[in-house]
């Protein structure tokens, strides 16, 4: 079968371009993967609500021609929970930055995972607060430089995959902007998954994280994603345990989804009257 040609323009708001991301930023690649995933799934944009918080990543919601809800810092998943529970037929996609998702929004992240509510969270992990000019985030990790860590960071980082898994997310995957085709696949599976799904995508910030930590330009940083990550269970891990695994870590189709469970409560409470 011939591969379908992509026409992602149908899913963007052209009048809102050019986008506000810096040259070399990985977020445009994530947006591209997301739009291709939506197109390949042939989703009706009328049924998609994109909810986002604050930060570079959060600006995605303005660029897509879905229902879009650009909210306050860290709370996008809580807004999305309200939308989803009120109208469960809608598909909820929540792009988030590392600070947005796991610092100020950490509580909502673990609780959305615990409820297993059918929302797709895409964590665009560039290990830095970009919009405010390069402060370290909970995903920066130790021994890194940032504008608020001029002597280097002493803060440990979260592992998004382990955190999401432990909190109860029923679909958890990780990829990078270097692996854009893989990202499309993961995002498609995450959107189709019934339950809380998390896709972490490493996304380069050459302007702040890259510059402060001497990682080179955008192309160099993406090359590093290629060198430092491997598919889950790769033999290379035996030689070098510091390599980071990519792939689908959790895909639990049996976990009860929150809105479906709530529908059962309605049935009991209304004794069939509803």
């Amino acid at each position, binding site marked *: 079968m011939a591969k379908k040609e992509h026409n992602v323009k149908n899913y963007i708001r052209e009048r809102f371009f050019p986008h506000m991301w810096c040259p070399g930023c990985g977020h445009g690649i994530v947006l591209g993967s997301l739009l291709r995933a939506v197109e390949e799934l042939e989703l009706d944009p009328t049924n998609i609500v994109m909810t986002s918080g604050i930060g570079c990543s959060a600006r995605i919601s303005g660029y897509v*021609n879905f229902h*879009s*809800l*650009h909210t306050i810092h860290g709370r996008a998943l809580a*807004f999305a929970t*309200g939308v989803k529970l*009120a109208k469960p037929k809608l598909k909820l996609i929540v792009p988030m930055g590392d600070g947005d998702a796991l610092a100020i929004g950490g509580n909502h992240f673990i609780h959305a995972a615990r409820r297993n509510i059918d929302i797709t969270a895409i964590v665009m992990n560039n290990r830095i607060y970009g919009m405010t000019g390069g402060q370290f985030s909970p995903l920066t990790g130790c021994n890194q430089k940032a504008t608020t860590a001029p002597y280097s960071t002493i803060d440990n980082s979260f592992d998004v995959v382990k955190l999401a898994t432990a909190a109860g997310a029923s679909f958890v995957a990780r990829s990078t902007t270097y692996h854009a085709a893989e990202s499309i696949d993961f995002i498609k599976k995450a959107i189709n998954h019934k339950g809380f799904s998390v896709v972490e995508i490493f996304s380069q910030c050459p302007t702040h994280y890259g510059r402060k930590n001497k990682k080179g330009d955008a192309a160099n940083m993406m090359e590093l994603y290629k060198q430092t990550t491997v598919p889950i269970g790769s033999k290379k891990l035996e030689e070098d345990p510091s390599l980071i695994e990519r792939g689908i870590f959790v895909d639990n189709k049996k976990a009860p989804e929150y809105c479906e469970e*709530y529908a059962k409560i309605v049935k009991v409470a*209304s004794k069939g009257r509803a």
Partner: protein
Amino acid sequence: MNKNIKFVQGNEACVEGALYAGVDFFAGYPITPSTEIAELLSRELPKRRGKFIQMEDEIASMAAVIGASLTGNKVMTATSGPGFSLKQEAIGYACMAEIPCVIANVQRGGPSTGNPTHVSQGDVNQARWGTHGDHAIIALTASNHQDVFEMTVEAFNFAETYRTPVVLLLDEVIGHMREKIVIPAKGDLPVVRRLRTSLKKGVDYHPYLPREDGRLPMSDFGGEHRYNVTGLFHDMWGFPSNNPKVVRELLHHLVDKIENNVDQITRHKEYWLDDAEYVLISYGSSARSAIHLAKNRRERGNKIGVLELQSIWPFPKELVRQKCAGARAVIVVEMNMGQVLAQVKSAVDDPSSVFLANRIDGELITPTNIKTLLRVIQGKGV
């Protein structure tokens, strides 16, 4: 037996009012003394195919109701003291993005954890200015359970009419006291339905373009019109803008749509005001003591009356000025350090004639507390 007569807590009267107004969605977090509102709605909403969710915190509750409102639901959350503080950023978001929602704040003593199980009216100014930046807000209150019911219905009506968050400022005494209410028959009280756009698919819909009457028809998420909602200053499509003209006009719109309608929004009651030499101004549970004292003094020939405010924000300045115009003295009765007092002083012709009868120790202000001050003002001594 009339099934529509109930003997309930104020918090339950609030729930009955919300159900009468057609609440579809509630998100909340447990906090004294408002928790009964969440408990009762967790039982009642699923019976009506409504949605109840206990969120992970107060901020998430506020966020969830805003999200649900955008799908076309009538939404509510309830909280108290510290919880009201936590919700403020999201309340500002609802002001900016013009999203109808009702926030019941059953007031307790503050600041901080304060006096969780005792009464206060210390959140009057927070209801007005709790969130950052210039904005307008509607805040309603009630002194008895029938009024709690009616003001709750009114809160939903105002939220829809003005596309705004509405604060229902109850207090611990009202919330927990038990009293009779009569639930009106369907249709007895007006219930405002959401104004939705009549524009068909394919027609350019402007979610933030007011009609001539100032109202903005909405379109539900999941409907044909896809638009952007943001807390940034935005144009008529909802797209972010920092164009000075757009910023100025939007801020004026957000304030004017409420401040210019103070006459439509104002709710009040008055008792024996016509010839009153002494005017008591009060609201919420402290108004009960003010009315009690005034009735008692009237029987002894004192010319004393009560102006009970049921809407505090936007503040009914002109109403207060008129009602106090002939008074020798005005006594504001409230359980805080003079939050409505300051508004009254700025409204009346002679601010030096305005006095504060207050109580801030967690106990309900009594008629005797007010009488003591009245006697001093009258030159009778205590």
